[in-house]
């Protein structure tokens, strides 16, 4: 297997982040353009200004609060240093191995084995693990999982995946609004307008699907590279491998607390059925065994 160099991965990720934001912004503006023509060409600037302001607010708020949003939406609580000493010392060891600042540590109340990382940069990063992971995993396995999350942090994956999640959400909101607003349109049809309406409907249906597919493929790729980083930090692939094997056998939890938009942030897919934000565990194990 071609090893992925870590530093290259970081700059590549930053570049891709920028490109993706650009692409989605363009899609967004185009979308606004089409919608304004579908109603009344005179409204173009009004629609554009409103949608640009809306986008900026949405993206900036999402970006600067990505860690808090993620933590709040799974109802995670802060891990205290006295109660979770081994959790702390494992992460401390890993930050020494990777030369990264210490992230804030959180605990999520769930019997499933899982973990996620969030925050816009390594200084503002948070790591959250489930109670289940702390209970069911051995020290080296837990260390592998934590190293994987730290790998996401080191390559700015959270920034990237959070932005992607925000963008995807935004585009689907806009298309929902558009499709619904069609019911209330006053009916003075001319041909050009009809064309734009059809175009608008087409975009409203296609854009979210396309963006979603892009998101899923990126998300799967990032998992492999975070696994590679985990091995770089711990130099012990077996820990991560046996953690993955345990997760495979772990019974899925009956309660689904995790919203779909957050799924790409997790260590293993929180939805056993959906399972598309993450590559198959077997494949991940296979690659890890080659390292």
């Amino acid at each position: 297997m071609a090893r992925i160099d870590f530093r290259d991965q970081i700059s590549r990720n930053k570049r891709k982040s920028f490109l993706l934001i650009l692409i989605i912004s363009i899609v967004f503006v185009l979308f606004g353009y089409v919608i304004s023509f579908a109603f009344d060409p005179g409204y173009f600037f009004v629609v554009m200004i409103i949608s640009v302001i809306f986008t900026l607010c949405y993206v900036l708020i999402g970006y600067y609060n990505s860690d808090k949003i993620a933590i709040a939406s799974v109802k995670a609580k802060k891990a205290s240093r006295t109660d979770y000493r081994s959790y702390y010392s494992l992460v401390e060891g890993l930050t020494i191995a990777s030369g990264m600042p210490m992230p804030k540590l959180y605990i999520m109340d769930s019997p499933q084995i899982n973990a996620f990382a969030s925050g816009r940069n390594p200084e503002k990063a948070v790591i959250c693990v489930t109670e289940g992971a702390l209970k069911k995993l051995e020290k080296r396995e837990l260390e592998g999982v934590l190293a994987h999350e730290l790998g996401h942090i080191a390559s700015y994956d959270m920034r990237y995946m959070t932005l992607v999640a925000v963008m995807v959400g935004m585009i689907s909101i806009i298309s929902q609004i558009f499709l619904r607003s069609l019911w209330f349109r006053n009916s003075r049809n001319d041909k050009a307008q009809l064309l734009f309406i059809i175009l608008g409907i087409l975009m409203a249906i296609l854009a979210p699907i396309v963006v979603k597919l892009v998101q899923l493929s990126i998300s799967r790729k990032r998992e492999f590279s975070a696994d590679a980083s985990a091995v770089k930090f711990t130099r012990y692939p077996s820990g991560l491998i046996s953690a993955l094997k345990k997760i495979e056998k772990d019974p899925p939890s009956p309660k689904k607390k995790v919203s779909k938009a957050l799924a790409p942030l997790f260590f293993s897919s929180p939805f056993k059925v959906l399972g598309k934000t993450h590559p198959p565990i077997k494949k991940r194990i296979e690659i890890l065994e080659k390292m």
Partner: protein
Amino acid sequence: MLTAILIILVILVIIIFASYFNKFAVLSNRIENSLSQINVQLKRRTDLIPNLLETVKSYAKHEKQIMKSVTEARKALVSAKGLQKKVKANNVLEGALGKLFAIAENYPQLKANENFLELQRELSSTEDKVAYSRQFYNDSILTYNNLCTTFPGNLFASIYGRKKKEFFKIEAVDKKLPKVKF
């Protein structure tokens, strides 16, 4: 027109020179910092040991031999100069501690002591941290050496007088845990 191009070229060259200068500086600072990190972790280990010995003493008085060897190994680590020697001393200490914890198995009360368990956990986690800080030290040297030996970094390395650095190695003999006699 020509002067404008020349000015831009000069600025570009200055930027390139400056950025390589900074790259070397950042990387060698990282190496220094990771070296001090190793020392921090070793210091933390030596600080924990007196406490540990106190706890052991109150439950297992007559295990004098092993306690003496731990004390001596600790002393050797504190007085060791230079990374190579320090790590060597640390390995001796690790061996002695291993023995101590093995002996502790014979003392159920000691084994159940909360303080003792805590120190045991703490010591094993600092051991991990020592290993990790060493690994990061070598990783930092690798990044630095890569920059020194690949084009165009090698050109700038010779201009700025930066040389390749030695990896930190543990000799094969040292890797074996030292024997503790009874």
